């Protein structure tokens, strides 16, 4: 084997090794920008997006139609701003669709489930505009407000739309906390009721 071919093979080896290291690092740092899929971006605000991750699936009717591309905290409205990328072929989602965060399985990962609205929810357009004005609107919301008018004409979600109806992810601790506090208050009331009766007797 000539020196040249040896050197080429060593070059290939080193490149493959570095590429593998790079790929291992990429998996961690969420730099997966190479998913250059075609589609459009929509936004949703959740008060609690705990457990949701970038690249989590976005489903409608149990079928994956897109992915979460970004989750960040909106410092103006103090909520979580979730960016989703919906595949290009699903371009007929009604504007008044709602987004909820669900859990796959008992301990599985979180995903966003979209539920279609009545369709062509443009009778609410004024209300939505009011809501938008009331909320003040952050960065993407401004883009969303501009897109809203167009939404109401087409009746479909499109690039830059913001989903208004959202339901947060269930956090077990919160749920248990609520249950316990309710249980305690009802017990206290029950005890308060029982005491006068005892006194009366």
């Amino acid at each position, binding site marked *: 084997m000539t020196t040249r071919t040896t050197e080429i093979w060593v070059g290939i080896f080193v490149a493959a*090794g570095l590429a593998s290291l790079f790929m291992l690092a990429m*998996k961690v740092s969420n730099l997966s920008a190479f998913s250059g899929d075609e589609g459009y971006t929509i936004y949703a605000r959740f008060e609690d997006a705990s457990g949701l991750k970038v690249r989590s699936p976005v489903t409608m009717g149990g079928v994956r139609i897109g992915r979460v591309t970004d989750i960040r905290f909106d410092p103006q409205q103090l909520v979580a701003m979730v960016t989703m990328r919906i595949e290009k072929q699903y371009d007929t989602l009604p504007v008044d669709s709602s987004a909820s965060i669900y859990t796959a399985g*008992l301990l599985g990962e979180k995903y966003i489930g979209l539920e279609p609205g009545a369709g062509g929810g443009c009778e609410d357009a004024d209300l939505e505009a009011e809501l938008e004005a009331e909320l003040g609107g952050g960065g993407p919301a401004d883009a969303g407000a501009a897109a809203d008018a167009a939404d109401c004409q087409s009746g479909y979600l499109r690039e830059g739309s913001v989903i208004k109806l959202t339901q947060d992810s269930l956090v077990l601790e919160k749920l248990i906390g609520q249950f316990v506090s309710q249980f305690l208050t009802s017990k206290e009331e029950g005890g308060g009721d029982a005491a006068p009766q005892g006194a009366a007797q």
Partner: protein
Amino acid sequence: MILATLQHLGQRGMQVFERLGRASILLSRIFGGIHTLVPRFSLFIHQIHSVGVLSLVIIVVSGVFVGMVLGLQGYNTLVDFGAEESLGVVVSLSLVRELGPVVSALLFAGRAGSALTAEIGLMKATEQLSAMEMMAVDPVHRVLAPRFFAGLFSMPLLAAIFSAVGVLGGFFVGVGLLGVDDGAYWSQMQAKVDLYDDIMNGVIKSIAFGWVVTWIAVFEGYDAVPTSEGVSRATTRTVVYSSLAVLGLDFILTALMFGD
């Protein structure tokens, strides 16, 4: 009788420490020859070829199969808990933390370490090393140093290739055949695998293994009895000692890195 046994034991112990001492001296001489690597860079390249590139096929093939087995086994266990989305985490963590460095080091010892020992041992048996000394060329600098550093350099790359290919093998089985969601496979992996704690520690492990395996291989070859039997024994010892050293060192490194 007892005294004879004790004497025998002491003799063996002395021999072990003597060999360890000679190996350490050899290692310091190799590192003393690190500056000669630059003017003889093509030697280094050639050794990377024979140590690293020629090990590539066995590493890639075993990586794919180990990853696929991990995917199958992990899926069968996780599906009982409804947590098959975590398959990517199982596959990648086992590969990056343990199997990548360890299995590739074991394969490396079998494929490259034995070849290094046999080559150097045969050079010694045919008095090529003595001939070099006669020509005022230090065989440690000319023969051993490029081989040692080539092994040290190749091992982390081979381990990284093994892990990456294994993750793809697990992806192929889990997502392609068993129907795990591909986004969940990657997203859970990205959420749970840490760049420093897992990947960098795996790389550090593989550097340590590469060091130990090539050190043992080079030393056994240089220290071999210069007969055909001696060379064959040295080759066997290289594979046995380096496999044991890798497994033992792996426990120590794992305890240091992950056991807190």
